[in-house]
């Protein structure tokens, strides 16, 4: 019986391919791409200011709202945070990535990679939450700062307009630390992969030719690791751009894109504006991906 069914399929390979592909494709095309498309459509609708109902007519009115100063500021704020977080992640990722790629024994390497990938996959929310404890005014970080007598430095940092605030937990500095903490593994992995591909002989050759370690780093290692940095930056940039949990949990009340989208669709029920706002990160990411591809980042993924 099964054999006859099997033979039936054998003689119809196209049918088998169709049966394999149809469920996942239908699901993603209908549910996911369908939703994305609907989102795009909605961004061209507008909302009636009096009734709060969506007017299903094509208009660019909603997009015009995005360019109002308040919203422009949100975009600028989010993009600069994403940029700074990306740069910081790239720098911080280097020592560990380099150690894993060039010095760790195969056994240690496996464990270190697990140590980096576990935070990448797990407990995003809980990891954000942990910083709520750490950054609290009465919390562990303040305690250490007092222990070392660094209150003055902290106060000085927090006094800056734009990045400071009443405490670390309520300031952009705090947000920045948490963003870096959360997305760092996404940078370490591709940088490590790229460094892995730098042949040891090349590093030795450079040293052999009289380059000091720092020169070797600048002229040999850094250029070859660059695609990895770009690959990692796709994640750190994109994820920071769309996040709304961290700005809600840590930081001041100034909106980020994600937060704005979240609140427009929620309390305000203004789905068209939320949709139009979302197109911002999408467009930025598409441009970013195109640039990244030109820089060869996809080979490092």
């Amino acid at each position, binding site marked *: 019986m099964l*054999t006859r069914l*099997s*033979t039936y399929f054998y*003689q119809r390979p196209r049918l088998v391919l169709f049966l394999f592909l149809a469920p996942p494709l239908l699901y993603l095309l209908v549910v996911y791409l369908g939703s994305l498309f609907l989102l795009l459509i909605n961004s061209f609708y507008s909302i009636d200011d009096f009734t709060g109902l969506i007017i299903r007519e094509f208009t660019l009115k909603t997009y015009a709202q995005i360019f109002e100063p308040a919203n422009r500021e949100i975009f600028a704020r989010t993009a600069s945070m994403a940029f700074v977080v990306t740069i910081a992640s790239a720098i911080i990722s280097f020592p560990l990535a380099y150690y894993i790629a060039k010095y760790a024994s195969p056994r240690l390497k496996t464990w270190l990679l697990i140590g980096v990938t576990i935070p990448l996959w797990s407990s995003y929310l809980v990891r954000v939450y942990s910083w709520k404890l750490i950054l609290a005014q009465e919390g562990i970080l303040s305690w250490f700062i007092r222990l070392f007598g660094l209150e003055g430095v902290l106060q000085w940092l927090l006094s800056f307009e734009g990045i400071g605030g009443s405490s670390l937990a309520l300031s952009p500095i705090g947000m920045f630390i948490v963003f870096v903490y959360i997305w760092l593994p996404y940078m370490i992995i591709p940088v490590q992969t790229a460094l892995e591909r730098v042949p040891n002989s090349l590093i030795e050759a450079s040293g052999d030719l009289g380059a000091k370690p720092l020169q070797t780093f600048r002229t040999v290692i850094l250029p070859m690791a660059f695609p990895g940095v770009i690959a990692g930056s796709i994640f750190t940039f994109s994820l920071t751009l769309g996040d709304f949990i961290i700005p809600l949990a840590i930081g001041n009340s100034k909106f980020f894109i994600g937060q704005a989208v979240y609140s427009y669709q929620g309390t305000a029920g203004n789905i068209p504006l939320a949709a139009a706002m979302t197109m911002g990160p999408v467009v930025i990411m598409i441009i970013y991906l195109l640039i990244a591809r030109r820089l060869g980042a996809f080979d490092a993924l």
Partner: protein
Amino acid sequence: MTNPSSTPAIRFNQVSRHFGEVKAVDQLDLEVIDGEFFAMLGPSGSGKTTCLRMIAGFDRPTSGSIYLYGQDVSNLPPYERSVNTVFQDYALFPHMNVGDNIAYGLMIKKVPKDERTKRVDEMLDLVQLKGFALRKPSQLSGGQRQRVALARALINHPKVLLLDEPLGALDLKLRQQMQVELKAIQKRVGITFIFVTHDQEEAITMSDRIAVFNQGKIEQIGTPAEIYERPASAFVAGFVGTSNLVSGEVAKRVTGSDQTFSIRPEKIHLGTSNEATPAGMVSLDGVVRDVIYLGLYTRYLVEVAGGIDLVVVEQNLKTTSMDVLSIKGQKVKLHWHKDHISRVGA
């Protein structure tokens, strides 16, 4: 050897297999005789592997029919043909031990356990792997894996056994040893073997008959001697062994016709320029352009009048390297037996 009354083991009737625009196999007719060791020889992309895959059922003809002992199997799936395959990469199941790998076909047929064990032992005996039943494929050497693959196929008593470049992954010594062994096993089990190879030496050593493939067609089918001595085309002459192709003016001088012919390097005798031509021989004057001393024999490159270079091989029976190397640049006379040339057409 040939018994015309019996049904051929495999018969191709106008079989084609197209991959898009590419005609991998093009209107092929072929008969493989029951019980023979048959080789499909050709360069990669010549269609030989596609033919093998169509016999096994991994691929189906675009048009035409394939018969297995008279039964049309063109559209039957692999598991409904009494044909088994030894794969190029052996395709052993990594999650099973050697014994379970060999017993796989019997397990699927629900053969009782004790009979399976008995037959696996017989097979391990046949391929000289006694006591290996509990090893994992990853613990075996290349040659041992090859034997397991062979045993796994033969245990099902297939009507035809297919071998896809079976010795390709082995080193030279092991390959030569396995050539002899495969031939012996085939004689013992009496099953029709069809094997695919791009190695002409292997095909000549092992097979009863050879089909030479080129661009989806068969150029020639025959015994190894026929293929070697009487190549039917320039392609066969060039692919099986090395050959000199002579055409145009020079050919006319030798044979009286400008049709291309081929002559094997070892059939040409290298004589001094004033030597007389013996009876039944043809001769050409030439100049030795290059000499390559190869120990057992020496290869000469001789330019004959008309601007054609001929390769000549002579064994170093009495000569030394000093003798042969000194010939470079000298005038010589080449001669060979009239019967040793093959007309290969245009």
